[in-house]
C-alpha cells in the first residue's frame, strides 16, 4: 500500500467511532451535528455599513490603522495628478508595473522607465525599482485589504519586491466584507484561478523584536492606494 492509501485507510478506521459534537461541553446536545454548518459569517464579523460612504469610511479607518495611505478621488485625472506628485516627492527613477487599463494610463503620465512584470523580466531590475504599480481585484471595506492576484496585479513579485506598492483601484471595486470578497473571487475566476491570490493589508510589518512594530520587514515599507 502506498503512503496515500495507508493514510486514507487510517483516517477511515479512526473515524469509525464518531466524535462528540463541536464546541463547549456545557451546550452538549449529545448528538453529532446534522448537515454542514451554514456559512452566514457576516453576522459574526465586524459590522460594515450599507452605503458607499459608510464602506469607504470603514476602509479608510482600517487602512489608516495599518499605516496604509488611502487616497480617494472624484476622477481618474485627479488621481493621476496626485500620483505624479507622489512620484516627484519621492524622486522615483524606475517603476515596476504590468499591462492594464489603469496602470497603462499611469505609466504614460509618469514617463519613467518601467519593468513590465507580465512578460519575462529580470528580478534584480524589479528589485531596483522605487515603486511597484499594480491594479487589484477588490478593496475590502471591513478590513482595509487590497485583493491582488498573479493575474490582476502583474504576477507574484510586483506587489512585494519594490519598497513601495502603489495600487490603482476603481470605486466599484470596493466590496463590503471578507465573505463577499471571497465570493467575488469565485465568481470572477470560476475554476481558472490565478496561481496566487493575496489579501494585502497595510505595508509589510513585523513585531518580532520586543513586540515593537516595524514597517518594511521584507516587503514594501509603504502601501499607497489610489481609488477613483
Amino acid at each position, binding site marked *: 500500500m502506498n503512503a496515500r492509501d495507508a*493514510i*486514507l485507510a*487510517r483516517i*477511515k*478506521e*479512526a*473515524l469509525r*467511532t464518531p466524535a*462528540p459534537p*463541536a*464546541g463547549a461541553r456545557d451546550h452538549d446536545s449529545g448528538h453529532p*451535528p446534522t448537515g454542514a*454548518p451554514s*456559512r452566514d*459569517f457576516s*453576522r*459574526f*464579523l*465586524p459590522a460594515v455599513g450599507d452605503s458607499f460612504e459608510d464602506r469607504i469610511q470603514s476602509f479608510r479607518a482600517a487602512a489608516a490603522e*495599518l499605516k496604509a495611505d488611502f487616497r480617494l478621488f472624484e476622477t481618474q485625472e485627479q488621481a493621476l495628478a496626485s500620483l505624479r506628485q507622489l512620484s516627484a516627492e519621492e524622486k522615483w527613477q524606475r517603476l515596476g508595473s504590468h499591462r492594464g487599463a489603469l496602470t497603462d494610463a499611469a505609466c504614460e503620465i509618469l514617463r519613467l522607465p518601467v519593468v513590465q512584470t507580465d*512578460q*519575462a*523580466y529580470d528580478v534584480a531590475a524589479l*528589485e531596483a525599482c522605487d515603486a511597484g504599480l499594480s491594479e487589484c481585484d477588490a478593496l475590502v471595506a471591513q*478590513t482595509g485589504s487590497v485583493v491582488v492576484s*498573479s*493575474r490582476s496585479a502583474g*504576477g*507574484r*513579485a510586483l506587489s*512585494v*519586491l519594490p519598497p513601495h506598492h502603489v495600487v490603482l483601484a476603481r470605486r466599484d471595486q470596493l466590496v463590503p466584507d*471578507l465573505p463577499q470578497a*471571497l465570493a467575488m*473571487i*469565485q465568481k470572477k475566476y470560476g475554476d481558472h*484561478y*490565478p*496561481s*496566487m*491570490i*493575496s*489579501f494585502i*493589508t*497595510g*505595508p*509589510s*510589518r*513585523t*513585531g*518580532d*523584536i*520586543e*513586540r515593537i512594530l*516595524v514597517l*518594511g*520587514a*521584507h*516587503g*514594501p515599507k509603504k502601501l499607497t492606494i489610489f481609488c477613483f
Partner: protein
Amino acid sequence: MNTSAHQFHEQATRLSHDLRHRALIQTALEKYEVKRDEKKAVFQDWQGARQRAAEIKWEAVNHLDAYLVDFARKLEGRGTKVHWAENGEQAREIIVGIARAKGARALIKSKSMTSEEIHLNESLEQSGVSVVESDLGEYIVQLRGEAPYHIVFPAMHLTRDEISDLFTRKLGTPPTKSPEELTMIARRVLRQKYIQADIGLTGANFAVAETGMISITENEGNSRLTSALPKTMITLLGIEKIVPQLADLALFLPMLATVGAGQLISGYNTLYGGPRQPGEFDGPEEFHVVLLDNQRTVLMSDPEQRDALHCIRCGACLNACPVYRNIGGHTYGTAYSGPIGSVITPHLRGLLEWKHLSYASSLCGACTEACPVQVQLHHHLLQNRRNVNRQKPVWWEKLAFRAFAVLANSPGLWRLAQKAGRLAQKAHPLIKGGALDPARPWTQSRDLPPLAKETFRDYWRKRR
C-alpha cells in the same frame, strides 16, 4: 523519571524563579492582550464565531479522508505534485529528494512549525543544502541555534540588546538599540537569500479542499517572497489543516489574526493554487505539496480528543496559560508548546514519555476559553492523566487512595486523624521544607495553610 520529564522539571524550576524572564514575557504578552481584546470587541458576535469555527473544523476533521482526496485532486489538476508522508522520515526523504533532483544548494524557508516537528532543517543541511529561515523571529533563533520559543512569536524571549549582540557576532553589523535598524539589517541580508535560493519552502495555515489551495498568513511578506522568487516551491503541511470551502477563510482569517496577534487581519493572507500558470511570468515552475500524517491519525482515533486536530496553531492558549507564562516555551522540549503542545505531544510522541506535560497545568481552563475553535484543552489534559493511569497505574498512589477511602468512610478514624493532624501540625515547623518533611514537595517553596482550630462538627455542635 524519564529524560524529557527530568529536563522539563529542571528547566521549569529554574525559569519559574527567573524574574527577568518572567518580566520579559509579561511585557510582551500584556501588549498583545490589549490589542487582542480591542479586536475581539469589534466582532459582532465573538462567541458565535467560535462556535461556528469549531463546527466547521469538526466537519473537516470528521470527513477528512474525502476532503483530502478533493484537495489533492484539485491541486494535481493544475500541475501541482502532491506527496503523502506517513511520518517525519518519509516527509524528510521526499523533501531532500526534491532538493537533490533539482541540484539545489540553497533553500529559503518561511515559517513552518510542521518542519520543526520533523526536524527538517537538520536533514537538509546534512544533504548539503543550506537552509535560511526568513521570518525575522525564526531567523534570529536560527542564528542562535535555538528552537522557536513560541509558535507565533519565535524570539519573544530575547531583548533588542541580545539580538543586536547576536547580529554583531554573526553578521558583523554595528551594535544598535533600534528594533527598526535591526529589522533592516535582516531585510538586507535576507533579500539576497531569496534571490539566490533554488527552493522556497513554506508551511500552511489552511488547506482549502473545495478549490485545492493552501492559505498562508503572515505579516512580513517573507512568505510572499519565498513563493515568488525561487524556481521550486514546496509546502509542508499536516493533514488536519483542511477547511472544506474557500468561503470558510472569511471566518478563519480574521479569527486567527485576532487571537494570534491582536490584529483584525494579518498583513498578507495568500492563497496558492498551483505553480506558475499559462500566461504568468513569475512564480515557481514546480509546486510540491507534502501532506504529513506523523501520528495525527493516532490522535484522530481517540474520539474524545479528536477536536485537538481542530487547532489552527494561533498560540492563544500559550498566551493565556499561567504555566507557559512562567516556564516559557523552550522548557516543554517539544515543537508545540503550551496547553495544545501538552495535549497533543503525548499522542504524537508517546503517552508515557510525555505524560509529565499533562500535569503542567493548573486546570484553570484559561486555554479552553482562549481557543478560537473551542478545543477542550484542559479537559484533555485531565483525560491524558486518566489514560496514563489506566496504562500504567502507580502502586503507591492506588495504595494511598485505598487508605484514604478507609479513613474517609469511617467517622471514628476520621475524627482521630483530625486530632492527630492538629497535634502533628504543632511540631511541623521544626521539619518544614526539610528532608524529614513528608509534605516537602509542597512546603519547600510554599506555606502549608494551618488547620482550623476546631472542626466543623465541633463548631456546629456548639451553635445548634
